[in-house]
Every structure is written in structure tokens, then in C-alpha cells.
């Protein structure tokens, strides 16, 4: 009893520190279905008007096309990241590779130092190979940026698979490829799953690459859509509307987070522990 009482100040302090986040996310939910009188943050009326953009393209432009594009964008990135990380991570964890040390260090440096700084170089590479202003180009770049993390995570998961499993597989007459596919890959499923979740959330939220590498293209993802909608100079200047679009945009992430909280927390923290 005394123990619980003495924790009250601590909980209060924590609550105070968390207040900005709590307020922001609380109002993200509340504001999408209410109106507030001018000069006040406290809503006084319930309304569904802010969600009209879902059915009426005149409000902010069609939202469904960007949604489908974003789904496609995310799915492609997840697929690339999974395939390349699962093979690359395995090679670095278990196979004979020349310059292993150097490659591993390289992956780690690329991971630790996200080279969005190199966007100028990326921009030029895409121009040279003709993928500038295309969805494919942006997908490739985003997947590449995620790869060092993915490879590193997968290497960590492969490292935990007992060597004996592979030795036993080799003894049983299976080729190294079969051993990987049928014996090792099933052991790292949790890793693949966590990586897929992480990549999906990351790709879903990506804004800069589509904006910079495909500025005048005919596709829009939800991030660029939301940014266009919430432009302060737009005719639709209305934070309740921005938040509705934003909440719509974030719903899939919230759903994933609600279902897979444990795994996500692990990869967001543990993933970088090396």
C-alpha cells in the first residue's frame, strides 16, 4: 500500500511530460468528428462533415487513388526489403564472403548514418537511368535506404539459429540453398515478420523521396496528398479536415500497432541493438 502511494508523484511527473503527445493525439481523434467555436480548442458540436473527403472528391481531390498507390508502393518496398535482406543477411551471417568484415562494417555504417544526405547523388543516378519521376525509381530508392537496417536485423536473427541445425541439414544431404530455404528460413520467421511490419510502417509514412524524386509525376502517395491538402495557402485551410485526412492516412499504422505492439516495440528498440 505504501509502495503504491509513493509512486503517485512519479506517475504525475510522467503524465506531465507526456502531456503534449497526449493532447496532440487526443485532439487528432476528437477534432475529426467535432467542431469548436472560434478562439477555443474545446469542441461544442459533433459532425461528420470533416470526413466528407472520403466520398466527395470535390473536397480535397480523390483520396482513393493515392491510397491504392500508397498500398502498392508499400507492398513493393516490403517485398524487396524482405527478399534482399533475407538473402543478404544470411550471407553475412553464415556464408563465406570475401571482405566479410568490411561488408559488415559497411552495412553497419550505412545503417547508423542514414544517407538521405546523399539524395543529390540518388537524384542524379535516377536521372541517368531514366527512373526520375517514376514510381519504380522511388520504390527502389526507399527499399535501398531500408536495406542496411533490414540486412543487419536479419543477420541478427540468423545468428541466433543454431549452427547445428544447418550442419544437420547438410548431413541429411540437403544443399546449402535447401538448408536455407527449408530449415533456416522457417526459424527466422519472427524476424521476417517484424521486418515486414517495420518496413511497411516506414514506407507508408515516406514523404521526402516521392516529393523530391518524383515531383511532377502523375502519381501521388498519401503523404504528398496530405501535404498538398494541408498547405496553408490552400483553399481548404481547416485543421479539422487536415486531421481527418491524416487520421485516415494513419489508420492502417494504428491498426498494425494495436495488433502487433510487442513485436514492433522490439524491432524499434532491439532492432538497433546489433
Amino acid at each position, binding site marked *: 500500500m505504501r509502495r503504491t502511494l509513493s509512486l503517485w508523484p512519479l506517475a504525475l511527473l510522467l503524465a506531465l511530460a507526456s502531456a503534449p503527445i497526449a493532447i496532440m493525439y487526443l485532439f487528432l481523434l476528437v477534432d475529426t468528428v467535432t467542431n469548436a467555436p472560434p478562439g477555443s480548442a474545446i469542441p461544442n458540436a459533433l459532425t461528420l462533415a470533416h470526413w466528407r473527403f472520403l466520398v466527395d472528391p470535390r473536397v480535397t481531390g480523390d483520396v482513393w487513388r493515392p491510397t491504392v498507390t500508397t498500398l502498392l508502393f508499400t507492398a513493393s518496398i516490403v517485398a524487396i526489403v524482405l527478399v534482399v535482406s533475407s538473402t543478404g543477411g544470411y550471407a553475412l551471417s553464415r556464408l563465406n564472403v570475401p571482405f566479410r568484415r568490411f561488408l559488415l562494417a559497411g552495412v553497419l555504417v550505412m545503417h547508423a548514418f542514414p544517407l538521405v544526405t546523399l539524395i543529390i547523388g540518388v537524384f542524379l543516378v535516377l536521372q541517368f537511368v531514366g527512373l526520375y519521376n517514376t514510381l519504380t525509381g522511388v520504390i527502389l530508392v526507399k527499399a535501398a535506404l531500408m536495406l542496411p537496417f533490414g540486412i543487419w536485423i536479419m543477420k541478427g536473427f540468423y545468428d541466433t539459429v543454431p549452427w*547445428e541445425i544447418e*550442419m*544437420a*541439414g*547438410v*548431413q*541429411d*544431404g*540437403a544443399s546449402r540453398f*535447401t538448408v536455407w530455404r527449408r530449415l533456416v528460413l522457417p526459424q527466422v520467421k519472427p524476424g521476417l515478420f517484424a521486418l515486414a511490419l517495420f518496413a511497411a510502417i516506414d514506407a507508408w509514412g515516406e514523404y521526402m523521396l516521392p516529393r523530391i524524386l518524383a515531383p511532377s509525376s502523375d502519381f501521388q502517395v498519401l503523404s504528398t496528398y496530405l501535404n498538398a491538402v494541408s498547405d496553408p495557402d490552400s483553399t481548404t485551410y481547416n485543421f479539422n479536415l487536415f486531421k481527418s485526412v491524416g487520421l485516415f492516412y494513419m489508420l492502417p499504422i494504428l491498426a498494425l500497432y494495436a495488433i502487433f505492439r510487442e513485436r514492433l516495440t522490439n524491432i524499434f528498440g532491439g532492432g538497433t541493438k546489433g
Partner: protein
Amino acid sequence: MRLTICDFTKTFDRTTVIKDMNLVVEDGEMLALLGPSGCGKSTTLFAVAGIHRVDGGAILFGKRDVSHLPSQKRNVGVVFQNYALYPHMTVFDNIAFPLTIRREGKADIDRKVRAIAELAHIGDLLARRPSQLSGGQQQRVALARALVRQPDVLLLDEPLANLDARLRLEMRSEIRRIQMETGITSILVTHDQVEAMSMCDRIAIMDQGAIRQVATPSEMYRQPASRFVAGFLGNPPIVFLDGEVTGDGGFASRGVSLPLPGRLRHLEAGRPISLGIRPEHVGTSGGARVSGQVVFVEPQGRETLFDIELEGGAILRSIQPAGDDARVGDRVDWAVDSDRLLVFDRHGNAV
């Protein structure tokens, strides 16, 4: 199938861990590779299995040179210390895996898996997953998986190390029974002398990357080739006394004098030797006698272990059938079976 290891050499990062090792395992024989950890026994096993490369020499299965074949082409079965069962597969799929890799027919696989499962007494566990099995059952599955494709050689890497004491006893005889029923040439790697002695036809004892002696268990126990072998085998361990040969064909050290075994009476006087005295040869019967004070008593149930301190300070160990004849502090005068004493020269080799 006869297994021959010929001048085998293994190097890791320019450090040679095994040099020019030679060993023959006869067809159908079960041989123990016994030694302290780090002696190179597992390295040898992995080289035979095709997991480690051979840096020199050759490994022959029958007449076939497999030195540079990957393990997929060697047809060896291995049971690993942690069993290495595939956790995502049922017991049936685990055992069937080597056969599915060979693309054998479904009916064939089913028949073979059931037969080997019967042999290993796990016929009723086929639908389970490894995580639902006890240690002993996992061990049996690993054994069945290693045997199902009738390997030329069966390799067992510390197979009992992860089992508790009771199961260890049970699996010791089970592995031996299955090995004898299948008649597959086997190598057992272990650091446990009891396993080696109870399960195998012969023992090869290894130390620092070299084989010190190859012999049957009883021969090795009775006639160890070196002080290392004598010290490694036997529980409670042997006691060594360093001293020299006396003029009358005896042995003297720090106030102890004992007659040498009959066959060694001719040794020249003054030669430095060490005497190995096993605890069971001190106590009730024998031609020589020693007297001293009991300094330690450890009742072990059926037997009792004593340490007695002789006048010169040397300590002898004795194991005797349980009784309450001596306590700490008692002075005793016990017999020593001098004909069973082991004698080693200055370099530790048996004389």
C-alpha cells in the same frame, strides 16, 4: 564400413590443432573419441562429417576417399549434442527429411520412417513437434533421423551431455543397443570416461590434438600407455607418487617404500619414476602394506572413499566396500596390491 583416418591435419587461422593423426575404426565397431575439452575430438568428428575441411591427409570410408567431398556426398549420420532437431517440423518430418531430400517415394519414406521409429521406440510420437518432447525423446528422434538413410558412418557428438543423470543411464544402453542392431560403424565423441567405457568397443583417447592410446576399455584401464591416460580414466582418480627405484627392486618416495610389480623388479636403481596407485588397490588385499592416518572419509553408499596421509606427507586414496571401520584421525595399516601398480617414466610413458 571401415573408416580410416590417415595423417589427418587441421589448421585454424595458421594454428595447427591436429597434426598427422591416424585412426582406424573397424566395420561395425563403435569407437569412443575420449578427451578433455579442447583436445580436438570434435574437430576430428566434424572433419569426418564433412563440416570442416581437411588440411592434410585423407579420410577413407571403406576404400572411398571422402576427404574433399562435402558432407552431402559422404552419407554420414550425425547426432549433435543439442540434437539439432528442426523445430518447425513434426517428428515424422524430421526423420523423413533426409529421405525427402533424396526424393524417395512417399510410401517408401513412410515405411522407413515407421521402421526406424519403431527401433528407437518413438513410434507413438511421430505427430509431435520437438518442443513437445522430453530430452530423451529428442535424443531418440535425432538418432532415428541420423540412421534412417542407413549411413556408412554414425557420428555421435556428446550425445548424452544434455540429459539428466537418470536419462543418461537409460540412453547409454539404448544407443548401444540400436548401434548393435543396425551394425553401423560409429564414433562417439565424449569427455565422459564412463560413457566411453560402457558404450564402446574401443576407446581412442586424445589430448592436445593427438591420439594417446587406442585400446579396449578394460585394456586401457589396466594398462594405460601414459600417465595422462591413467589419470584421465578412473573415478575416483588415480594417485601418483613421484620417486625413484631402489636397489632391491622397490620404489621409494618421501618416506614411502613399496615393492614394484613382479615384472618390473629388474629396473636399475636410482631411476626416477612415478607410481600410479588406483584407490581400489589400496585397502584390504595385497602383498605390501602402508600405514598412515585417515584424513578424509567420503561415504558413497555402497563404497567408502578414504584419503590417508602417510608419514612422509604423501596422500593415498582408497576405496573399500562400505563399513564403519575407520574414521578421520584413525591410524590405519592397509594392504596395497603391489602387482597392480602402474609405473611411468620421467616423460609419463608407461614402463
